[in-house]
């Protein structure tokens, strides 16, 4: 076994194990932590594939922002655990069976006959001064400038959507107007009306 292979199997083991732990975890916060572990393993695998920039991005953006957002929402909503697992066990055996069949089938398609080392040879490692980020940036800002702009639109949608959906002070909400309160005068507050009391003769 080469060193590459040992690393690959170690990271793969953690990747698969923590993913399994994530889907079977009964506690949403623990599930997030397991998912973070599997993201770290995925990032390690990506580094083996010489995609350093994306591996770092995965950790910074995903673990640093997205997963924290998950944790934030879990803590904020204070989810009742008992209702969440009501249907859990019923589907489990069937789900595992289907998954096992799919994995076997996919392994047959993706196995050594199609993508083995003799068919797709491993490329030589890049030199030590190879910069993955330069290569990607070169492509991103030239060839992929159109998708790059589209990604900007996507982020704009995310901003508009999350503000539209969760901001609480609606436009027609009743709220204080400080300047009006300060400028109020006695005549605005007290209205003197003359009421004629009905006399006894009317009854």
């Amino acid at each position, binding site marked *: 076994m080469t060193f590459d292979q040992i690393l690959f199997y170690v990271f793969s083991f953690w990747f698969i194990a923590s993913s399994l732990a994530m889907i079977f975890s009964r506690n949403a916060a623990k599930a997030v932590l397991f998912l973070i572990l599997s993201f770290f393993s995925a990032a390690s695998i990506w580094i083996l594939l010489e995609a350093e920039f994306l591996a770092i991005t995965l950790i910074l953006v995903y673990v640093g922002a997205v997963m924290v957002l998950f944790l934030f929402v879990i803590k904020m909503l204070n989810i009742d655990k008992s209702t969440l697992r009501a249907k859990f066990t019923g589907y489990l055996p069937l789900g595992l069976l289907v998954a096992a069949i799919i994995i076997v089938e996919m392994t047959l*398609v993706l196995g050594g*006959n*199609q993508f083995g080392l003799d*068919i797709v040879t491993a490329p030589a490692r890049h030199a030590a001064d190879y910069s993955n980020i330069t*290569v990607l940036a*070169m*492509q991103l800002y*030239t*060839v*992929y*400038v*159109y*998708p790059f702009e*589209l*990604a900007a*639109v*996507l982020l*704009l*949608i*995310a901003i*508009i*959507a999350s503000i*539209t*959906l969760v901001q609480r002070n609606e*436009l*027609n909400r009743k709220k204080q107007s400080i300047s009006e309160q300060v400028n109020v005068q006695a005549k605005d507050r007290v209205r003197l009306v003359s009421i004629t009391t009905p006399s006894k003769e009317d009854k």
Partner: protein
Amino acid sequence: MMNTFQFDTASLLLALPEIFLLSAIVVVLLLDLFLTKRFKQVTYYLTQASLLITGVLSYNLIGHPETVIFSNSFVLDDMASVFKVFMMGFSMVAMVYSRHYLTQHSLFRGEYFILVLLSILGMMVMVSGYSLLTLYLGLEILSLSLYTLIAIARKRSGAIEAALKYFVLGAIASGLLLYGMSMIYGISGSLNISDISAFASDANLGARETLIINFGLVFLVIGIAFKLGAVPFHMWVPDVYQGSPTSVTMFISTVPKIAAVAMLVRILVDGLGAMHAYWADLFMVLAVLSIALGSVVALMQTNIKRMLAYSTISHVGFIMLGFVTGVVSGYGAAVFYVFVYILISLAAFGIIILLNKEGFEADQISDFKGLSKHSPWFALMMLAVMLSMAGVPPFIGFYSKFFILQQVISAGFITLAVVAVVFAVISAYYYLQIIKSMYFEDADKDITISAPMDIQLVLSINAILILVVGIFPDFWMKLALSLF
């Protein structure tokens, strides 16, 4: 790397409709912030103006020779331009209907129009997408805007549940689609549709390559079927249609179908056309299941939005049948069907919105009782819409089904055509049910129509078009055929 990159500023002119729309979105977004409540209608008019101008800009590009720009990720051909023009037209009609609904249900907010415009931008990107990457990004721009549009009715838990359902299933569908895309990329080595097409139509394609393309194809077809709402990936359609605010239901069920069909054409016809024999089999199964389930389950519905959802599923089945044929005329018939379906659907939802009153959703079939007595004109229009959906001549819905079946038969799938006709006849029953309650039952509640003139006028034109285009379908059919 650098020397292969070319950027020609003149090519920006070919993307002018998209560029204009994006700029308009930003302007409307900023302007909306400063509009006081009295002037909120300005957002609506600006939206309509942006759609109109974008439509005109796209119309001017019709007839431009097929050009691929932005490093092979954007294509401008007649299909793209014509689709964009139709998208703008249909969206404008949908906006006229929506405004009435939004004002009555106090959902009239500037963000609504901005999200609609953003979703239309996403559809335009999909229609012009010429690489897997741009198609995916366009799809996500569209989907994310639609999820938000549904959830914009923040006080209705039905709408929120619908949004969540749509969101989760849409995200899974995107995941499956991406897995398929990764396989296609892995075997062909490129994301561009033209490279993939060249790779797939290579005569010396080995067994290994064919296997992997087919493997990816299964995931791609599942992803596309999810987005179109074909059986067995339809589970989101009825719930989303029922739960969403009616104006959003109307929008989701109409215009995005053009974009979904465009994505289907770009990936499966333009890209993997050589693999037609493989994906047509999958499509055949999906189409038959959709037509059957859509027609039968719709019979049991009492909610008209849910009924229209199942009716949409069966229409999607017919659209997919057009792609099963594998010939250009079949694809043309499918595109014609999409346009006709949208025209009819818009009118149907327009009438539902017309019956809405302040704080009251007219979404039950029983709400149509006695419409003929109170408003004979709109009852007549609903009659035209329903007969058209059922496929009764001389309405336009007959010709769209007829063209599809004609192509299916000439491609040699006689049994398929027979099955489709049988279920079309079954589906006529529930359309007739609505006609029955309009004409032969008495109203149990007040159904006077108090909608503003603009919606009544546009709705009338929309319904008359169903009849007029039905009398002269040839021109539109030729137009649809010329796109391939």
